[in-house]
Structures are given as structure tokens and as C-alpha cells.
């Protein structure tokens, strides 16, 4: 932890600020709600790392999606994600956002969250222990340091891809597209 390194603060205040002030929006869709209260209260105090829960997406820059994502909640996950100010980081918590987990054959949950919004990191497990949140936060610091936590830029660049996937599963979306231009659409398709 280089929070007290004054030289780094003077060199890149924005990056250091983003690292040590992660205002988290917990999107507790299902079982993960149980793991969050211990991690922010007395036993594993997340606030000592600067991670603090906030009430609205406007104030947040860390989006933590815990547990399975049903089709209904996906709509609100997308809306919350689009409301967050940039730079924003997403972390999927638990097996279910990664590949469906125990809901792998459910008709009503989505299997791969990163098809719909960009995800910067995963915490595997069913369920992960609350300590895993801190492991994720320290990994996220490393990613921010190296400039690799750029999911929001990917979303901007490949918006057409994400929007198509969202419309495929949700039908017609009632909100207008967030970005109009599509830079690397075809290119991304061949990779994915």
C-alpha cells in the first residue's frame, strides 16, 4: 500500500485518489448480500482501505455485483452502470456472474455477465469469504496502477456490441443509447 507516498500523490493525484477512495455500490442480487455486511462492519473493516458503501450510482465508482443475475435485475444493473461517473470499476462477486454457477441451466438467469457490461475483475467461489473482497480490492489497485482497469473505456469503444447483447436478452430497451459512435465494432467481434 503506497497511500502515504507523497511523491506518487503529487505525480498522479487522480490515479491515487481513485485507488484509495473506492465508493462502492453493492448490487446485491441474491446470496452475496450476506457476505457484504461483515466486510464493511466491525470484523473486516473495509473503510480502512477507503472502501465505503454509498447509496446511489451517481456517487459510486466501484460496482460490486454479488450473486446470480436474473434477467429482470440485469436491466437495472445496466442502468445503474450507465449512471455511474467515469472512471468506474466493476467486480463480479461469486461464481454466478462468471459462468452461471449453480444456475448454469436456468432459463431465467444470464450466464456471462461480461457480455452485457464490462467487468474488470472476478472473485470466484460459491460463496467467497468476505476476505475475498479485500483481495479483490488489492488486485484492483494493481490494475489501476498499471492502467488495466479500463472497462469503462472498453464499454465506450465497443458499445454497439454490448448494446446488441443487451437487446438480444431484454428485448427493446426503453432508454436511448449511451454512446452513438462505434469505433472498433467489427474488430472486437472477431476476438469475441
Amino acid at each position: 500500500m503506497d497511500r502515504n507516498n507523497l511523491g506518487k500523490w503529487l505525480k498522479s493525484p487522480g490515479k491515487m485518489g481513485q485507488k484509495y477512495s473506492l465508493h462502492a455500490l453493492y448490487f446485491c442480487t441474491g446470496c452475496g448480500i450476506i457476505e457484504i455486511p461483515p466486510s464493511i462492519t466491525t470484523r473486516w473493516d473495509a473503510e480502512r482501505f477507503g472502501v465505503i458503501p454509498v447509496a446511489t450510482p451517481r456517487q459510486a465508482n466501484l460496482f460490486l455485483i454479488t450473486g446470480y443475475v436474473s434477467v429482470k435485475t440485469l436491466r437495472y444493473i445496466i442502468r445503474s452502470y450507465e449512471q455511474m461517473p467515469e472512471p468506474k470499476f466493476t467486480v463480479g462477486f461469486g461464481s454466478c456472474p462468471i459462468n452461471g454457477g449453480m444456475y448454469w441451466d436456468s432459463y431465467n438467469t444470464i450466464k456471462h455477465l461480461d457480455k452485457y457490461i464490462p467487468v474488470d475483475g472476478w472473485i470466484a467461489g460459491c460463496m467467497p469469504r468476505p476476505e475475498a473482497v479485500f483481495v479483490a480490492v488489492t488486485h484492483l489497485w494493481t490494475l489501476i496502477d498499471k492502467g488495466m482497469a479500463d472497462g469503462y473505456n472498453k464499454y465506450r469503444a465497443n458499445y454497439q456490441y454490448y448494446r446488441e447483447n443487451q437487446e438480444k436478452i431484454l428485448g427493446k430497451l426503453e432508454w436511448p443509447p449511451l454512446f452513438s459512435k462505434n469505433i472498433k465494432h467489427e474488430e472486437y467481434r472477431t476476438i469475441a
Partner: protein
Amino acid sequence: MVMTTILEIIFIILLAGIIGLFFLGLSRKIMARIHWRYGPPITQPLIDIIKLFNQTSMSHGFLFNFGIIFSLAGSVVVLLFLPFGRICPLSDSGGLLVILYLMLIAPLGLALSGGEAANPYTSIGISRKLLLAFGYELPLLLILLTVMTHYNTISIVEIVNKQFQAGWSFQHLSLLLPGIAYILILPAILGFRPFELIQAPQEISSGPMAEYSGKFLALTTIQHAFNIFISISLFTNLFLGGAANPGYFFLKILAVFVIFLFANAVFPRFRIEQAIKYLWRWPSILAFAGLIIVLITGKNF
């Protein structure tokens, strides 16, 4: 002379900002220790503000931008009329009446700004904020009236000077009741529990702040820091005798702040109608009784 005044103005604004942010950091640390947590570093509000200024921020129109600056400016102007130790840039003009008027600008600005966002939680938060202001203005008016009658002046600098000669206001028996009333309404002015119903993150998604992002949130944080400094300074100047030098004054407001922080840590939250009922009953009765006592016993100065 003009030069010194300008320097004093800059100095007091910077100092109030630093002290307010220090208080915010201290409050998070002390609250954490009371919860048996380790807590964030004391510079955490500063880190938050640096981050917020490096974020994108969504505006919701002209009034949204204007209101927040209006509220911040209102707080800054109040600072210039409050003596900090011996430093008071605009001590010759105004007095308690001006402070009383200007203190209303900050909630009004936030209400203007939040109203533009058209978020239902924001509307609820604003209505609560203005109702609460309505609630504590009545006892506050009575308290200030009592103090002004007792010392026979509206100048806050003169009140502080008279306390240097005759001891703190708390030592005068006739000002004891208004002092207690001020202690009872101070959590409402600070927005501390049991009057934390304006933001209430679990209930109405942080109320008026719900739509603020990026630099707007940073400016509201700074305004909150100023507000803490102003309300505690006013109390210290009126009832705890002010101070001869800034260091001593800082120690006094620190002590008052920490005591109210302890109350903040252990109390639950009022509902808005309970808060109004409480504010218009006990502090108002005490302040009114104090006013009558002061009127009967006559002026001491």
C-alpha cells in the same frame, strides 16, 4: 488596513476549510473506533475530494450548478462575520442578525440545486432539510434574542469581549437555560444523529445528495465541512467565551465537536415529525424561559 482585511479573509477561509475537513476525517475515525473498527486514515475526506475532482460529473441544468455554488458562497460569507480567536475580517459591520440571515442561504442553495435534479429521493430530502431548518430556527432565534438582550448588543465581537471581562456566558445564571437549549439544537444544525434524517442513506438514498457526482459531491462535502465549523464556532463564541488566540479557540471547538460526535455515535434517528415536535417543545420552552428570566432580571451590562 484593506490589505490586512483581504489577507485575513483568505486566511480564515483556508483555515475553516482545513479545520472542517479535519473534523470530517476525525469524525469518521472516532466513529470507527466506537464501532470497534480500525477506521480510515484521517485524511480520507481529502482523498475523496481529490478523487471526486478527477471524475466525470453529470449536471442537470443551470440551477443545479448555480445552487451548489450559491450554498457554498453563503457558507463562506458567514465565516467572515464569525470571530476566530481575535481574527474577524468583517467585525465592524453586521453582527448576529446578519449571521442569522446568511445561515439560511446554505440550505436554500442546496434545495435549489437538488430540486433541479427532479429525483424523488432528492425532493424528500430537501423537504426534510427545510422543515428541519424551520424547526431549529425558532429556538435559535429565541436563544440569540436572549443573548443580545442580556449583553445589550448585536455585535458578536462585543459579546466575546464582554465574556473576557465577566466570564463565559454559561457562568451567568440567566444565560444557562438558553445555553442548554443551544446544546439541544446543535445536533440538528450539524445534521448529526438523532437529526440525521436529511441524508439517511439507508432510507432515502442520501437525500439531497442522491444526484450529485464528481465535483458537485466534492463541493457539497466542502460545504458540509464549512457548516460544521460555522455552527460550532457560533456556539463557542456565544456561550464558551470565544478565545484570545486561534489555537485556544481550535481546542474549544474540537472539544465541543468530539462531545457531539459521541452523541452521534450512540443515538438512533428521529422521524421528521418527531424531530419538529421535539425541537419546538423542549429547546423552545427552555429558550423562552431564558428570555423571560433575562427580561425580568434586567441588563447586566
